């Protein structure tokens, strides 16, 4: 594996924002997740739970509701009173429409998918017609006294249930009038609470309405008579979310204590046909409030304030007991938030509203393997760059020479020039950005820092030459006609001749930067690309996919390399394919061309192409070889994948020079320390 000095960086104070809503789409098997800062992320559950798209957040856009309608159209609504539709191809917001009812708390698409219902702060329930490329206001339902916090359609589309404060209303969709008003008990363990907030309702096809409320109750109501049928007291705190499966034989609720409960419809006795809702399984995967849950055909999905997205497959629904049946916990974004300037040993950290620039510390001490060396010079916080305006940063990059910083929000692109004078640093903004450079999905500097590559959200790639304090637009690679897919990943070869760009589904395009034309397209693969890099000297393009496959493609020869073919023939180790976080970064060793360095959130791996590949019988996760063992055994057990799991959760790892590595970790405890307070629970023995 070789020995390295490792900079173990733990000063990246990144805190992901809490999850507010999840919405599962059965048709495409995708999951939309919205966070409290307004970010919306799309996870592809069939592609190994990879986060393939995201829409940057906005300060005033606190998303409170998210739903899919008309198949693949995604809508969100929030406290600024607007309904937003997202363009999933171009990765931007199609339109935002004011609903004129104050802040919006809830939204539900009709079972047919052609209508959208929203519940507002002023107590109004509004019906919108979904027409191609737009939504249109249809009518208001009878106005209620207080805010409508939850909505649910009857599967036939004739009635709706609306949860408010202290009561649930049942509306007739045709007439728009409330036919029942079911009052919810405020009492909670014989103590009268101030208010009982109905956090969620679900309407079943037999007319049962299930409500969850802030007093910790799950209640079953008969909507025909407006009476309470059954009451489950499940928590000491709020029950905040509910989701029902499509078959209506099970549902899941999430509580503020971090527990989710699975309810199932089971027979009362083994012989009788009479069925009853029974609380079957509790799961405690969260530490904080579970603000939202979803029920896919095979799994329970939950998310909350503790920023984890948890996907718990249901064992009885999974046919093959393989690794797909394992619990998934997604905490960190599947994209890079850190960029590195190797020459000056700088790290640029990207937060939602600011950038931080740090200079790494250094040491003069030397030590044995495994020693922690004392720092002779501490890491320096050089720069804190705040964005203007309410929009979140989409992407950022620092040039390898360290003298340029570029970042982009949804509507503006910023380029800065940094000047270093001994210990001081000065920042100068490059003004007059051209009109076409308004928003970028990915930014990359060439290795010699003379060119800037920008992937815009219209699918085009801009090449810009950087001069001292100014710039010149060289060329724009237009997307192939007929495709609107935007590019999310970029890689440039160290000699500056080749540029590789990949979108979310189509293949990787390779452009010739010298001749400014498309060189070739790597054949499309079923799974999205998670990382790209071009090796020095050989110009081999290494592509990692979300199913952990790694391909090596020779750009000059326009074909896969011999190593890649043997890997595909033999196949990867089964444990390697079962890894659940995608590879987010690929780099190369400057002196050893046979090495490929890859990492995901929980491991760091050096692939040595000269060694034999491991087969399924060999040990993949090899502990570091003991030195006293004979050379023969070492050589026999050695294989191409050298994996280190010392650093985790690992957000970034790169080679600064041939002897030095930098690893950026983000311990989960540090994140918890900055989250809102959880519910108090009594633990035995404390």
């Amino acid at each position, binding site marked *: 594996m070789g020995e390295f000095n490792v900079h173990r960086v733990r000063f990246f*104070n990144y805190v992901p924002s809490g999850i507010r809503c999840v919405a599962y789409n059965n048709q495409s098997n995708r999951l939309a997740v919205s966070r409290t800062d307004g970010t919306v992320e799309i996870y592809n559950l069939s592609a190994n739970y990879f986060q393939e798209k995201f829409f940057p957040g906005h300060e*005033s856009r*606190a998303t409170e509701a998210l739903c899919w309608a008309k198949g693949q159209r995604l809508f969100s609504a929030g*406290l*600024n*009173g607007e309904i937003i539709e997202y363009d999933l191809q171009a990765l931007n917001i199609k339109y935002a429409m004011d609903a004129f009812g*104050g*802040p919006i*708390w809830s939204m539900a698409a009709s079972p047919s998918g052609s209508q959208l219902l929203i519940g507002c*702060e002023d107590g109004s329930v509004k019906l919108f017609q979904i027409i191609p490329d737009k939504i249109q206001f249809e009518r208001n339902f009878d106005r209620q006294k207080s*805010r409508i916090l939850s909505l649910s359609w009857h599967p036939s589309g004739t009635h709706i249930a609306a949860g408010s404060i202290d009561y649930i209303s049942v509306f007739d969709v045709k007439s728009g009038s409330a036919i029942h008003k079911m009052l919810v008990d405020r009492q909670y363990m014989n103590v009268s*609470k*101030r*208010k009982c*907030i109905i956090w969620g309702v679900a309407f079943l096809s037999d007319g049962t309405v299930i409500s969850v409320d*802030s007093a910790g109750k799950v209640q079953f109501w008969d909507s025909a008579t407006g009476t309470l049928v059954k009451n489950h007291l499940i928590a*000491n*705190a*709020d029950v905040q979310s509910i989701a029902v499966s499509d078959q209506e034989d099970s549902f899941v609720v999430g509580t*503020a204590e971090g527990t989710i409960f699975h309810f199932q419809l089971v027979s009362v006795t083994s012989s009788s046909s009479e069925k009853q809702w029974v609380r079957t399984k509790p799961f405690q995967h969260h*530490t904080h*409030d579970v603000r939202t849950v979803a029920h896919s055909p095979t799994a329970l999905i939950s998310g909350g304030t503790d920023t984890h997205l948890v996907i718990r497959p249901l064992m009885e629904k999974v046919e093959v007991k393989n690794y797909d049946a394992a619990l998934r916990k997604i905490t960190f974004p599947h994209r890079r938030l850190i960029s590195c300037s190797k020459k000056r040993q700088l790290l640029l950290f990207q937060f939602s509203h600011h950038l931080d620039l740090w200079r790494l510390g250094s040491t003069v001490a030397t030590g044995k393997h495994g020693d922690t060396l004392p720092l002779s010079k501490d890491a320096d916080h050089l720069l804190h760059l705040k964005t203007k305006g309410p929009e979140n940063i989409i992407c950022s990059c620092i040039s390898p020479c360290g003298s340029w910083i570029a970042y982009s929000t949804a509507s503006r692109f910023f380029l800065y020039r940094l000047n270093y004078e001994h210990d001081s640093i000065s920042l100068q903004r490059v003004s007059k950005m051209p009109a076409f450079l308004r928003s970028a999905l990915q930014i990359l500097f060439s290795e010699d820092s003379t060119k800037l590559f920008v992937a815009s959200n219209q699918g085009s790639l801009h090449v810009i030459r950087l001069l001292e304090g100014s710039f010149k637009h060289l060329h724009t690679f237009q997307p192939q006609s007929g495709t609107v897919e935007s590019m999310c990943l970029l890689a440039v070869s160290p000699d500056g001749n080749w540029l590789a760009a990949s979108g979310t589904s189509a293949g990787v395009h390779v452009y010739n930067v010298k001749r400014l034309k498309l060189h070739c397209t790597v054949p499309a693969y079923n799974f999205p690309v998670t990382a790209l890099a071009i090796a020095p000297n050989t110009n081999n393009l290494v592509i990692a996919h979300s199913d952990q496959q790694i391909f090596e493609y020779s750009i000059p020869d326009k074909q896969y390399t011999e190593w890649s073919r043997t890997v595909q023939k033999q196949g990867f180790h089964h444990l390697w394919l079962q890894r659940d976080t995608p590879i987010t970064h690929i780099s190369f060793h400057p002196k050893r061309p046979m090495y490929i360095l890859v990492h995901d959130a929980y491991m760091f791996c050096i692939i040595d192409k000269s060694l034999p590949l491991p087969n399924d019988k060999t040990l993949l996760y090899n502990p570091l070889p003991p030195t006293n063992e004979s050379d023969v055994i070492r050589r026999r057990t050695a294989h191409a994948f050298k994996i280190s799991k010392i650093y985790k959760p690992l957000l970034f790892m790169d080679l600064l020079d041939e002897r030095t590595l930098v690893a950026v970790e983000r311990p989960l*405890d*540090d994140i*918890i*320390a*900055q*989250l*809102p*307070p*959880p*519910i*108090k*629970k009594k*633990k035995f*023995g*404390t």
Partner: protein
Amino acid sequence: MVQLRPRASRAPASASAMVDESQPTSEEEAEHGLLLGQPSSGAAAEPLQEDDEGDEEFDDEAPEELTFASAQAEAREEERRVRETARRDKTLLKEKRKRREELFIEQKKRKLLPDSILEKLTTVSQTNIKKSPGKLKEVNLQKKNEECEKGSDSKKAKVQKVQSVSQNKSYWALRLKDQDLRDSRQQAAKAFIQNSLYGPGTNRTTVNKFLSLDNKRLPVKKAAAQFLNNGWGTQKKQNAKRFKKRWMVRKMKTKK
């Protein structure tokens, strides 16, 4: 409306004057009480009571001799005094009404656009009625903008409130009032969610206590997170430091 008000205010005043004159002098005291006692408190009523008591005391004794001339003079003097106070009250009331009237007029003026703009607007709209509405709006907007530059800040805000359509997309006009309303509603909604999740009665613990729960059950006990992480609770630590300093100073003083 503006002209009606003074007339309405005059009517009760003249009526009271009429009452004054028609009332005989024997009912002076009642009148006195009505005029003085009503607006003010017991301070004015007390001397009257004293007078009454004095009368009763005199009743017991023999009546004092009074010449007709002196009595008449006294009565006249009394009458004159009463009339004077009535008049003074009346003028005060009038003045107050006048002031309020002026304030109303001023407020109304403040609400309206300046006269010059109004005049221009009416003339423009009359001349441009046959023209297309879009053009008309543009012209209006231009005029308003010109006025805007001349006018004070408050006028500017008013003009901005007017919805406008423009071909130039580098800016857009919106009603500030709507934006304020929306912001305040959003704030209220956020406060509601914050209060219902983290407000009083929600049984929340602190992050430090939460982290220490695990630590307490570990076989190897570690220091609490707040001591391990230097970036934690900086404000609290500073406060504690300041408190300690003050406490030391206080102790030193008391020892002396």
